[in-house]
């Protein structure tokens, strides 16, 4: 009886610890477009983009880069500036019924300073120019390939690494 109980407790301990470990390996994309790269370097091609709130699994770390795996077989290296720990979540179940896990976990998203707070600020500060800011964000967005050819055309030779 006693042995049985100890074995059961040991089993429980291992189970709980491994659950916690798994949770510790779960990360969430905290930027609008988390870039997945083939290799852990800013020079490596972008092989995919993961949206804000996507849950990923930490497979391996190298410097400031984490090899992550997302649901539908998406793999790649993501810079840690794009990731946060799982604990950004409010309580599970805080999201609307039937919402995806990542949605629940990002329950904090949109709270605090958000577009409603910005609209209030804008209304009270007429001398601001948010149209210019919107234009800034939308007008010029360059992809990795364009950056590569820009560097090549200007004979700028990057050093491997970066983003330490």
């Amino acid at each position, binding site marked *: 009886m006693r042995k049985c109980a100890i074995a059961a407790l040991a089993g429980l301990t291992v189970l709980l610890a491994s659950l916690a470990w798994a949770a510790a390996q779960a990360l969430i994309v905290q*930027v*609008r477009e988390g870039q997945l790269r083939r290799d852990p370097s800013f020079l490596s091609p972008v092989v995919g983009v993961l949206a804000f709130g996507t849950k990923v699994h930490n497979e391996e770390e190298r410097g400031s880069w984490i090899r992550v795996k997302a649901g539908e077989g998406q793999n790649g290296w993501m810079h840690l*500036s794009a990731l946060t720990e799982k*604990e950004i979540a409010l309580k599970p179940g*805080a999201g609307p019924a039937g919402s995806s896990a990542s949605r629940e976990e990002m329950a904090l998203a949109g*709270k605090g300073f958000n577009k409603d707070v910005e609209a209030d600020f804008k209304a009270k500060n007429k001398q601001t120019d948010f149209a210019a800011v919107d234009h800034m964000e939308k007008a010029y967005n*360059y992809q990795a390939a364009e950056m590569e050819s820009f560097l090549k055309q200007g004979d700028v030779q990057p050093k491997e*690494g970066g*983003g330490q």
Partner: protein
Amino acid sequence: MRRALVTALILAAVLVLGAAGVREVSAIGFGDLGRALEIGKSVVKVGKAAGKAAEDLTPEHEYYIGRAVAATILGKYKPLDNPAANAYLNLLGQTLARASDRPQTFAGYHFAIMDTEEINAFGCPGGLILISRGLLRCCANEDQVAAVLAHEIGHVVKAHGLASIQQSRILDVAGVLFQEGASHAGGNVAALSGAFAGSIGDITKTMMVNGYSRGQEGEADLEAATILGRVGYDPQAICQVLATMAHRYKPGGADFAKTHPNPADRIAALQEKFPPAPAAQAPPERLARWQQALGQV
């Protein structure tokens, strides 16, 4: 037996908590408010987390702060309507930013030219970067423009703008979020708007009136030299622009002299880590495209 059970459960709890604490992924020290709220559900933890303002805001909060700061600055300095120049500046700037220690912000890095002769630049939280025509005219080639942009990227990487927010405002935000707790309701705009406006005021006052500290400017200079080196530009370019600015530095002047340390001191600090070297000769294609994009600015 019961004691053994209790001991085992405590042991399990310790292991669980220990394992959960093994990993600490925090890109630039953005500890997050959500974590404090969820785990601790205690004012003590929120208070502790609020020790450094920059650590308590998520990249999404930072994004909205940065937009409002940039909108305030662009209300004073009109953006320059020159698509070719702005396109060049963004391609160069975004290429530099991805080699920084913070390649990803909530909505990325974006650059614009302010239509003013004043010599100044602003790196707003989240990556909205504004450069004056006057400062672009201090740059003699692409490497030097890259140096100026990389310095502002440095301020974003180090979250210097957020650091100037008074901590009491962050506590106000923490309080609102804490009250909302796990409820699915949206943000309490009325309660947050004061803290938001106050935060924008703190940052714009620092950036446009008082300036960052000497230490913060030094950090941004070093970050700039590092980025330039990684991308393949001349790290000395930052000293070259500073030398040009030193000629125009009038203590007590209205522009960068008001908000920045003496350029000569910044050069001396940089040269401790990046010893002086002969200026690299820029290839003709690089010089030509810089001339074409910014020659008329």
